């Protein structure tokens, strides 16, 4: 039986099309595991909604109202430039590795996973994580063009 995965979150949120919702409902009638997940997701949503963050420092608003427009940030500056250079280098390493694989090899996913594992030990872990997750998620992790 194929579980409807992230449709379950959409179902709990009432964010599915009528067709999708009917599909999920039919699956839930036959799948105790997904029913359990749906009950947990509903409980989690209540839990998260109940948590109250601390109030902001009252001095923040007056500070915000005195805001000066921020000068444009230099493009090639410090950490940002290093991050770009680092991400480019990582990308080059990852592509080089993948290009050594035979065409159509399922090893590409393993390579990305390994790359991501290594990258999580480097300061640029977010880059590694994004490429790791993009191998598994149905939708692109990177931003919309």
């Amino acid at each position, binding site marked *: 039986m194929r579980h409807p*995965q*992230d449709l*379950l*979150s*959409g179902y709990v*949120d009432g*964010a599915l099309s009528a067709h999708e919702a009917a599909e999920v409902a039919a699956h839930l009638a036959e799948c105790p595991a997904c029913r359990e*997940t749906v*009950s*947990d*997701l509903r*409980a*989690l*949503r*209540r*839990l*998260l*909604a*109940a*948590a*109250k*963050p*601390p109030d*902001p*420092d009252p001095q*923040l*608003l007056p*500070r*915000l*109202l005195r*805001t*000066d*427009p*921020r*000068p*444009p940030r230099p493009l090639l500056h*410090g*950490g*940002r430039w290093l*991050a770009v250079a680092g991400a480019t280098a990582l990308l080059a390493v990852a592509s080089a590795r993948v290009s050594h694989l035979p065409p159509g090899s399922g090893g590409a996913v393993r390579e990305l996973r390994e790359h991501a594992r290594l990258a*999580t030990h480097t*300061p*640029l*872990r*977010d880059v590694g*994580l*994004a490429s790791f*997750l993009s191998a598994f*998620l*149905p*939708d*692109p*992790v990177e*931003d*919309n063009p």
Partner: protein
Amino acid sequence: MEAEAGSLPSQGAGTQDARAEFGRLVEAYWRSAYRFAYRLTGNPEEAADLVQEAAEEALRAFSRFRPGTRFDRWWLRILYNSFVDRTRRQRRQSHLPLDDLSGKLLATESWADPEAALEEQLDGPVQRALNALPPEFRAAVILVDLEGLSYEDAARVLRCPPGTVRSRLHRGRLALREWLRAYVDAVRRGELG
């Protein structure tokens, strides 16, 4: 008034009006900006700093704000952008892998006892669990589950398709469900929430 704000010159006569309008909008929405920043950073000082930075960016870009669209969403989008830049610069995020659902977070924390969890005290465990999520997943959960945005609005803030919000949200929730298992069970038993 509102109609003029979209075509304000960056210098000159309109500047004062724009400045006043900006102040009015900041005053209306600073609390929601702060909540988002606090949930993203898990730290009051850093959150205030992030809101300040986003306000500076927003004021600088204010001539591009389209009146009639929602300022709070636009500001959150700028704020999230600053946050992403910042996490890349600071390089000190430590997230648990999403597949590590072993409940270690619960086992090593003294707050695993749901009996002790009143609403105010709940904030600590929830925030620690959020901190452990990778930032993109954390942001999706905060916007939808804590701030009540629709997938479409969250997608605009995060600059990704609504389908991406849905999958990030789902994977983030599955991780939180395990990390906050004791609390989730307490809610299901009707003892909490």
